[in-house]
């Protein structure tokens, strides 16, 4: 259990011994995690490991039962997802990010519409909104002929990228990506992973939740494995080969054996 060497930046998010109980259920029993700017920190774990509870705690949906949550070194306690967002912690949920029937522009600026005009005639500044949307989409590499087109016409990977671009545009310091690749095909996954890489190069911290070790290994700098509400360890990429990571996540040798039988396809 060690940190990466050579990265001098202080962590943006630093949680220590986070515990979360739901009544009698202990969802998290002492999880620690930190993410720096310019780093992709992968959070791995099988179903029920506590990944969702952890990110919802980070995102301000839940309050931790105990433990410390530091942002830029200061302890915080978010009352709502909006408060976390205002502190620069943006969460992109797998399928709860975009509204398919609304246009790309309307989605991009949802909740933060740019306004022009005076009080009774105040309206959305669609000219600048369309321009920004078109420009941001071009940067991701999505061919948006027309920002009026409905988000439903975009592919799953493109939607994820639009959601990430939106969070970045509105000043996120840390992105929490909840299984952004789990429902995507190969080409679309690589599109999203490429974009995550780009976000990192621009100095943002990324927490990337997945249960796919390959995706994690392709994008991540550090890996934290969760199991039954506990951290099994945090490893830098140089410290752990992919197979070991897979075994750690699966929690035993059985899977390794099975994986061997299946020709390494898991």
């Amino acid at each position, binding site marked *: 259990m060690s940190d990466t060497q050579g990265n001098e930046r202080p962590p943006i998010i630093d949680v220590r011994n986070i515990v979360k109980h739901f009544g009698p259920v202990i969802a998290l029993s002492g999880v620690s995690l930190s993410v720096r700017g310019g780093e992709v920190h992968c959070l791995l774990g099988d179903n029920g490991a506590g990944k969702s509870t952890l990110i919802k705690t980070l995102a301000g949906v839940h309050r931790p039962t105990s433990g410390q949550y530091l942002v830029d070194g200061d302890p915080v306690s978010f009352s709502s997802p909006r408060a976390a967002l205002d502190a620069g912690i943006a969460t992109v*949920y797998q399928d709860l990010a975009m*509204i*398919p029937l*609304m246009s790309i522009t309307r989605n991009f600026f949802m*909740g933060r519409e740019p306004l022009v005009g005076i009080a009774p005639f105040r*309206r959305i500044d669609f000219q600048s909104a369309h321009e920004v949307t078109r420009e941001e989409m071009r940067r991701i590499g999505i061919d948006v002929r027309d920002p009026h087109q*409905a988000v439903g016409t975009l592919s799953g990977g493109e939607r994820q990228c639009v959601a990430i671009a939106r969070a970045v545009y509105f000043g996120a310091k840390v992105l929490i990506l909840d299984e952004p690749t789990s429902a995507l095909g190969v080409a679309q996954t690589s599109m999203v992973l490429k974009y995550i890489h780009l*976000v990192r190069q*621009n100095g943002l911290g990324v927490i990337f939740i997945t249960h796919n070790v390959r995706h994690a290994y392709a994008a991540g700098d550090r890996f934290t494995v969760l199991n039954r509400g506990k951290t099994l360890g945090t490893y830098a990429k140089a410290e752990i080969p992919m197979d070991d990571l897979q075994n750690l996540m699966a929690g035993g040798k059985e899977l390794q054996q099975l994986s061997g039988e299946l020709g390494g396809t898991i």
Partner: protein
Amino acid sequence: MSQTQPIAPPSQPTKPIPTVDERLRKTSLLTEAMRRPELGALAGLALVIIFFLFTANSSMFTLSGAMTILAPASQLGILAIAAALLMIGGEFDLSIGSMIAFAGLVFAAFLVDAHWPLSLAIVATLAFACVVGAINGQLVIQTRLPSFIVTLAFLFILRGLTLVGLKFATGGSTQLRGVDEVVQDGLVKSLFSGVAFQGFFSWLASQNLVEKFDNGLPKVSGVPVSIIWFIGFAIVATWILLRTRIGNWIYAAGGDANAARNSGVPVNRVKTGLFMLTASAAALVAILTVLDAGSTDARRGVQKEFEAIIAAVIGGCLLTGGYGSAIGAFVGAIIFGVVSIGLTYTTFDSDWFQVFLGAMLLIAVLFNNYIRRKVTGER
């Protein structure tokens, strides 16, 4: 709004973007039109007008015929536009028909029994409707029950309260009369009853531009104020939906309430506001009808909630929310008026109206679903 440095891929140097994308031309006019929710309603209106051109007495297509059609269409339309906004926001309000009767009772009681001046009675009635709408909205939000059930309950509660209240106020009758006697003529009254632009229509008649009686008066003395309210409301609602932040929030709340909440849209406030709007629209219709008739009746507004929802659906609103338009509901209400009144100009039995209504609703729903798949690329 804080914006950080944009993300640029290192390999791709950014170049200025022209404000008009040259690739836009690829979108054909048809695709552009398909994206508008009111397309189906406009096509439907064209169809019914063609039908009546062939079957109806030509007096239907005169100015007085048009007013005869638009007067009932306008009252339904005010309700339909409000119902459309609420449907786009993802909820239903089945209580608006009963709300018309209830608001009519409250309004008439303020005037006849409390002897309030007209302006105060109008403001108080609308405020009262807002309270009922807010109760509807809060019940839906707090209990998380479907709005269908909550407002169905209020359909009966309000209708029952109207009957009980009217009998109490009148000593056993289900009608409250005497509004005419207590309302003073004046600016406020002319805003809510009678006809507008009388001078203009007299002038048209003097210039022989419109039909007139033998004594030189125009056959149509003016535009009923309810039509002006209807058109004004349609314009304002369309502007709000398409151009303002509230409009974006209405689409977002109905499209996916969770995604909207995650993006910081105050979904609960938007929905409560929309319930207040539908109740206020019902109260406005109540005020218009009570002033016109000079009385209120417990049977006012029966089935109007369904007609309003049908007009909104014909206008392109999806039952699942998140899609639709106020202009569509406007056109839907006009279709309603054209057919219900138009049949009396034909040799058909006017009871065919209900058959037509059901068929139109079915076709509209199928068409809307098809359009939605087109828009979202669902298969």
